[in-house]
């Protein structure tokens, strides 16, 4: 089966600083991939470069998504192609309500129009699943949201937009025990659709509990240093990343 996303020999710089080196990564459609690695390894950078953050400049290599060359696509075109990034630190944007933002995003990524009340009804079910009060819809996007609420709002967006590929960048960090469970169920629900693919960046395993992990990738010092099946997670938990680090 051909990959949904295939990253080939990708090198990336931020502010002229090399961050990622010769990355190879293949994400298979319908599968759950996990990306692990020490702090500062470049995990968020990888998520950002797939989404097209202009701060990350690609110095070599290629990325193909669903057969099309990602490097030629703007950020919004990538979103429309079906890529979603749940931000490690979602931004606060004053003056835009979560609802109107979601509505625009929904309409733009699907090239359709929705009725206000219908869309609200559709959202209210998802909000319930995420244990978020409906009043959050009328608040400014992420403004004054707690760390956990921001992460839940990201998952709300993911569930609403239903992208082909969702990259979750430490969505579980900062969540309390109950919230991890709630979010984890949300993610499991997302994966019920056979056409959905996940790349989960995480330092913990709790978020993975209700999921079947297909493949694990280890990123260290800007290199993919190891890949394997779900058992790799236990391995990392037991021994840390020590063995993957270069000894200079």
């Amino acid at each position: 089966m051909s990959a949904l996303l295939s990253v080939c020999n990708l090198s990336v710089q931020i502010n002229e600083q090399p961050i990622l080196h010769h990355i190879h990564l293949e994400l298979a459609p319908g599968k759950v991939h996990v990306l692990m690695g020490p702090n500062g390894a470049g995990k968020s950078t990888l998520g950002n470069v797939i989404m097209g953050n202009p701060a990350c400049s690609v110095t070599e290599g290629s990325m193909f998504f669903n057969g099309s060359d990602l490097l030629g696509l703007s950020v919004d075109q990538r979103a429309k192609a079906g890529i979603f990034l749940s931000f490690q630190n979602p931004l606060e944007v004053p003056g835009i309500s979560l609802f109107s933002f979601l509505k625009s995003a929904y309409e733009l990524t699907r090239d359709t129009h929705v009725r206000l009340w219908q869309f609200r009804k559709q959202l209210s079910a998802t909000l319930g699943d995420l244990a978020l009060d409906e009043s959050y819809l009328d608040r400014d996007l992420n403004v004054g949201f707690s760390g956990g609420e921001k992460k839940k709002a990201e998952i709300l967006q993911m569930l609403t937009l239903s992208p082909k590929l969702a990259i979750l960048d430490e969505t579980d960090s900062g969540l309390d025990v109950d919230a991890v469970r709630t979010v984890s169920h949300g993610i499991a629900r997302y994966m019920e659709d056979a056409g959905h693919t996940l790349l989960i960046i995480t330092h913990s395993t709790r978020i993975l509990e209700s999921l079947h992990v297909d493949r694990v990738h280890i990123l260290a010092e800007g290199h993919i240093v190891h890949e394997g099946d779900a058992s790799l997670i236990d391995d990392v938990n037991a021994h840390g990343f020590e063995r993957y680090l270069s000894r200079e």
Partner: protein
Amino acid sequence: MNGKTYLDEISHSRYDFRYDEDGYFKVDQGLNEDIILEISREKNDPEWMREFRLRSLEQYHRLSVPDWGPDISGLNIDNIVTYVRPKNAGMTPKWSDVPSEIRETFERLGIPQAERESLAGVGAQYDSELVYHNVREEVAAQGVIYTDLESALHGPCAEMIRTHFMHLVPSTDHKFAALHGAVWSGGSFVYVPRGVSVEIPLQSYFRLNAPGAGQFEHTLIIVDEGASLHFIEGCSAPKYNVANLHAGCVELYVEKNAHLRYSTIENWSKNMYNLNTKRAIVREGGVMEWVSGSFGSHVSYLYPTTILAGAKAQMNYTGITFAGAGQNLDTGMKVIHSAPDTASVIHAKSISKSGGISTYRSAVTVNPGAAGSKSTANCESLMLDSDSRSDTIPVMDIRTADADIGHEARIGRISSEAIFYLMSRGLSEEEARTRIVSGFADSVSKELPLEYAVEMNNLIRLEMKGTIG
């Protein structure tokens, strides 16, 4: 600014006209007594008004153009005579004469053809006139007088007008106040009697096309003791005027325990010199609220001023300015605390783009008798690119020890991370920027009635269009 207020500076201005290359500045070629008398006859002025116009004309000749703000040497003062001469020398404006930029704006705003023409000053009759009459009848039942100033001069409020007209903004104030005093024409008069609350906002929009309304309109509002009013001035759609000078005047009298909210959304054509003077006086326990959105114009000088003259009087100002390519908007506000326990709260925002210059000039004066007064100002500027400019020039003149004064100013840019965030959900770069800019303006649009908020948003969209190359 040497701690002086802007008004001081104007009245101390010297006689230094700018000379242009073609020759020199000839004042008397512009306006003369004959023209003023002609206007006065045309308007059927009472005698005192005719005298007032002539006195103002003298002031106009004596005062010089301001030399402390944006350059207005491009304003051909010689031509003022052609702006104000009645019956405009055989000019019959046609819709096709309206600049295409403005026609397009009307179209995009979805304003019906008939209304567009009338807003552009080329139509004669339109539906809104009818709406205006209906509103007038409704408030008249409460004893409210809402009419054009010319008729009011001959009505039961004639004396009230004589004792209020250009008492807050005397024609000695500055050159364009003098010009206004000499040639004013059109505008609104509102009187709200004691204790009357006007529930519906009155909108001068409805009578924009009243005969004679133009670039020298005068608004006079008196809200009597314990009464309250929301007045909306100007129109949210762009005005098109044959002349490129606007020197209107707004005088607002807020009596004891009265409440006035005065909202404006102005959008002038981009060749306009907007030299408008707005002033309010607030008596004991009264509340004055300004909500102001300034779009368009080539150069603006606009500083709504409030005199808090009675104890516990309050002023609240919320305003936004948008300066795009070729625009130099010098706006701000001025407040004078002249009585104990008065309070002012200022929220000013400005946006500058494509080389636009936006200057916020404020003056807060606390007089010796104004113990226990409080003023807080918060200015935020958003610069959309590095070609644009944004300045904040606050002046404070505090003459009592017992005053609580705060001023905070911030200048910012749109964060590229925020754009990336919005784009990652499918918004185009232009859309993302527009949403962020509208979001910045949100605290102002929230203060406006819905239809005006929507139109302000549309104006921002229009300004943002085509920003991305």
